């Protein structure tokens, strides 16, 4: 167990004075991710996935339990984590390139030598842009890009400071199916290359099974982890695998657990 990078130890969290009444948005969450692991959390909407994300980033402190990342307890935002949200949330007054450079202006140690090493950073950003298929769009403003392009840029921004941990909060939810599958592969390739930890929160079961090592199913109010499934499909995976018997049976199995949550309550 010593090689676990992210560890939730019986974590519960609620807002306002609800925890005092024993009401939590997420309850008794225990999970572990080994270094370089890719996990996905799936569940119906309103199951506390966003709360879970806020806990992992350190934006919220858990009401009960302990979260450790890299051996240290999480007490606030972590400089070695990158995050992409459901909406692209690019700053409209910055070009794509400047948006991607933003974390380097904020996160230590990059911000101390940002001016000095700017050329090097720009090169890194352009390379990242190229890897997600946005070559030539560096000087465009966000509103000149399509939704899918903005989301790609947003993933670049989450990765520019080479985080050890990438948090994805339904980042492909608002995209059309083809763009979504293309971005799965881009993410998969980046992850294979750089081996950061990924926590992907999603309500798309195929997405979770295709990308993750381990899928956790969360139940609704309170958010609890009701099922854990190791995905033993061989890597490297490509989209063909999503049409195989093994793949669909896993999706089917997970779907069954979500279905039973709904009928159970």
């Amino acid at each position, binding site marked *: 167990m010593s090689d676990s990078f992210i560890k939730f130890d019986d974590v519960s969290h609620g807002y306002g004075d609800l925890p005092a009444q024993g009401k939590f948005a997420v309850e008794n969450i225990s999970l572990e991710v080994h270094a370089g692991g890719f996990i996905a959390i799936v569940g119906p909407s309103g199951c506390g996935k966003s709360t879970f994300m806020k806990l992992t980033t350190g934006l919220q402190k858990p009401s009960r339990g302990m979260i450790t990342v890299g051996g240290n307890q999480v007490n606030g935002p972590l*400089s070695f984590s990158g995050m992409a949200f459901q*909406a692209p949330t690019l*700053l409209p*007054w910055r070009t794509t390139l400047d948006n991607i450079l*933003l974390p380097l202006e*904020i996160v230590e140690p990059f911000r101390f030598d940002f001016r000095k090493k700017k050329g090097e950073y720009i090169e890194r950003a352009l390379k990242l842009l190229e890897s997600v298929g946005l070559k030539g769009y560096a000087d465009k403003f966000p*509103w000149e890009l399509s939704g899918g392009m903005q989301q790609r840029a947003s993933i670049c921004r989450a990765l520019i400071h080479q985080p050890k941990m990438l948090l994805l909060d339904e980042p492909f939810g608002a995209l059309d199916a083809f763009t979504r599958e293309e971005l799965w592969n881009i993410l998969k390739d980046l992850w294979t290359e750089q081996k950061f930890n990924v926590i992907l929160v999603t309500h798309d079961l195929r997405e979770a099974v295709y990308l993750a090592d381990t899928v956790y199913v969360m139940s609704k109010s309170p958010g609890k982890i009701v099922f854990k499934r190791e995905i033993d499909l061989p890597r490297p995976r490509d989209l063909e695998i999503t049409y195989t018997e093994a793949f669909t049976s896993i999706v089917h199995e997970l779907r069954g657990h979500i279905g039973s949550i709904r009928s159970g309550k």
Partner: protein
Amino acid sequence: MKKKNILEKNAALVLFIALLVIWQLICSVFKVSEFIFPSPIQIGQNLFEFRLEILKHSWVTFWTTMVGFGISIVVGVLLGFLIGSSKFAYDALYPIMTAFNALPKAAFVPILVVWFGIGAGPAILTAFLISFFPIMVNIATALATIEPELEDVLRVLGASKRVIIVKIGMPRCLPFFFASLKVAITLAFVGTTVSEMSASNEGIGYLLISAGSSMRLPLAFAGLVSIGVMAMSMYELFSVIERKKTAWAHRS
């Protein structure tokens, strides 16, 4: 097609000239006395004849307005940031500011004269009092309506409150800021002129009063033209800076 474009581009100028022509025609056809309602030509003649006098008074009005306007930018931005970034300051200050803004600023002139004597003092302060409010409200609104998602992007990275204001608050305020400058500069000219009308021996406001009291209406109108030109020039200046600095907010 091309003709129409030229007309559209210069719509303001065309309308202006048309109005002048109609004005001139009415004055000429009905032989309106210049003591009642001077014609554009008479106003033009006075503008030329008294150009040095008008220029001197215009300069006084211009610099007092710009000083008052400068103060209102500083105060308006500071108060705007205070009110916009703190719920407590918003609740405490906003009602008082609204009440203050409802007061007629001309009513302050006699009080300001008691405190500062006649001349530039009351003019500068009246310009300031009348023009800081829109700046303050716009900055406060810009800050108070920042999308929380944008703040989250920075907070996740461990950004401090100060960094969030610099990276998000300030750039987001800019379009609101320039919009408010365009409103505020015209108000500032009103404030200066109103003050000069009752509490100064120089400036366009003074010129208006003295020309009016000696029935030299063409000269009074020439004074109005001068203020109009100054206010419009400043407005255009801010429009140009706005388009350069906040192009992202004016997508086309």
